[in-house]
């Protein structure tokens, strides 16, 4: 349980059965009046934001959030399926919940699924993944017209800019946080 004096930016609390994160916080108190805690909150399930003012008598439940290692299985009609390899339990996330991570979902990749009371909210990927380039224009030596990079497509369908020497069929490493090319991977 939290009381109003525990409220601060980043705290995750449960209201009406949904998890909320406090995105803005300020303490106000009119002269001789009661302490008020003005918060901006974001619903971690649907992303809705709102403002609310709490008082010192208010109490809050902590949002029961946990991360679980799960394996990506497949995608079907906008639903992404992940499985816990210990319990074989499966969860489904929507495309919105997956967000940009959908560009890096390799078959069988292991991710951290953020769960709120067993309801999945989102995933976090490993920071780096190695992927095969499935489509690239051949490297014309001395061709400087296209500049220092060229576009390629990788096995997940994601497109990015890479140095011109990267060829189709090669493996490259991508930083999943920025979506950028890092290095060529041998072997």
């Amino acid at each position, binding site marked *: 349980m939290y009381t109003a*004096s525990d409220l601060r930016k980043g705290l995750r609390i449960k209201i009406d059965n949904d998890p909320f994160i406090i995105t803005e916080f*300020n*303490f*106000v*108190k*009119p*002269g*001789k*009046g*009661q*302490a*008020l805690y*003005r918060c901006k909150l974001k619903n971690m399930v649907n992303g809705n934001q709102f403002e609310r*003012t709490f008082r*010192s*008598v208010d109490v809050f439940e902590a949002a029961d959030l946990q991360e679980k290692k799960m394996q990506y299985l497949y995608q079907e009609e906008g639903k992404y399926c992940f499985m816990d390899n210990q319990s074989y339990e499966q969860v489904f996330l929507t495309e919105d919940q997956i967000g940009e991570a959908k560009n890096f979902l390799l078959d069988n990749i292991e991710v951290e699924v953020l769960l709120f009371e067993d309801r999945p909210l989102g995933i976090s990927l490993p920071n780096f993944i190695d992927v095969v380039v499935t489509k690239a224009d051949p490297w014309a030596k001395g061709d400087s017209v296209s500049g220092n990079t060229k576009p390629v497509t990788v096995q997940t369908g994601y497109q990015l800019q890479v140095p011109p020497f990267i060829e189709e069929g090669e493996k490259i490493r991508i930083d999943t946080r920025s979506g950028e090319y890092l290095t060529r991977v041998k072997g």
Partner: protein
Amino acid sequence: MNTDDSWKLAVRADVLRLRARIIRAVRHFFVKRHFLEVETPVRIPAPAPESHIRPVPSDGWFLQTSPELCMKRLLAADYPRIFQICKCFRAAERGDRHLPEFTMLEWYRAGTDYRTLMSDCESLILDVAADLGFGKTIPRQDRTIRLEPPWERITVREAFKRYATMTETDALRMDRFDEILSCDIESRLGVEEPLFLYEYPAELGSLARVKADDPGVAERFELYVAGLELANAFSELTDMNEQRRRFEQAVSECAFRDGLSYPMPEPFLSALPRMPPSAGIALGLDRLVMLFADKSRIEEVVAFPPESL
């Protein structure tokens, strides 16, 4: 990790110099007007019981939440014009405009009521502004505030009529008065020039006298400049029995809230019948510095906010 953050103190040099100058100008203002500067104990056995102010315990006693009670005992002992600049402490108050330890300026005048204090405020702020080299205006967050008196005066009732969706009476009944005042009204007060918000509902002036012709209204005002609450003033209540009754009510509210029983400030209550009709005011000095330094957060105007200790 590098824990040397003396650079944080160094970047505050301009503000800290301004702060020192403001305090010197304030002191000069009162000395010039024949106010006696007094010092009263910071650690006291019984602060004034107030429903929404929590004192910090200190070895069986408490740190003062304001020097009010001791200063009024001086009034009762025939010190008719006194002022004090001191540290006050209030538990669990930390925000953009609150520090749990802050600097208060209080002054008291015998033989007058709160209207005189409004004129004092006008003269004081103009004097300090002049000392700092400002003219009749000061800049505040990209706007200009005119300081030429007299400043605007509106009642609490009028403020609710102008800026809120319900009357102050309904707001009180629904326990939403503080919320509406701080969220919907305050930011609009004192925007062009400083403003006195006055005539508070009687239950919001625990140590204030009620108006002779309207017992539902307390002779209390707050000074706002650019939405910033700077000072709180009363025509002081001198009726001992009424004061005791209000304190007892606050004590029982505090007991319910904190599970603590606060003692009655008996020496103050017994001095009250000897206190002449008076008016007193508490002005947050840190906020005065915020105003003149044009800073929006209180930690920007002190050398050591609590988080830096």
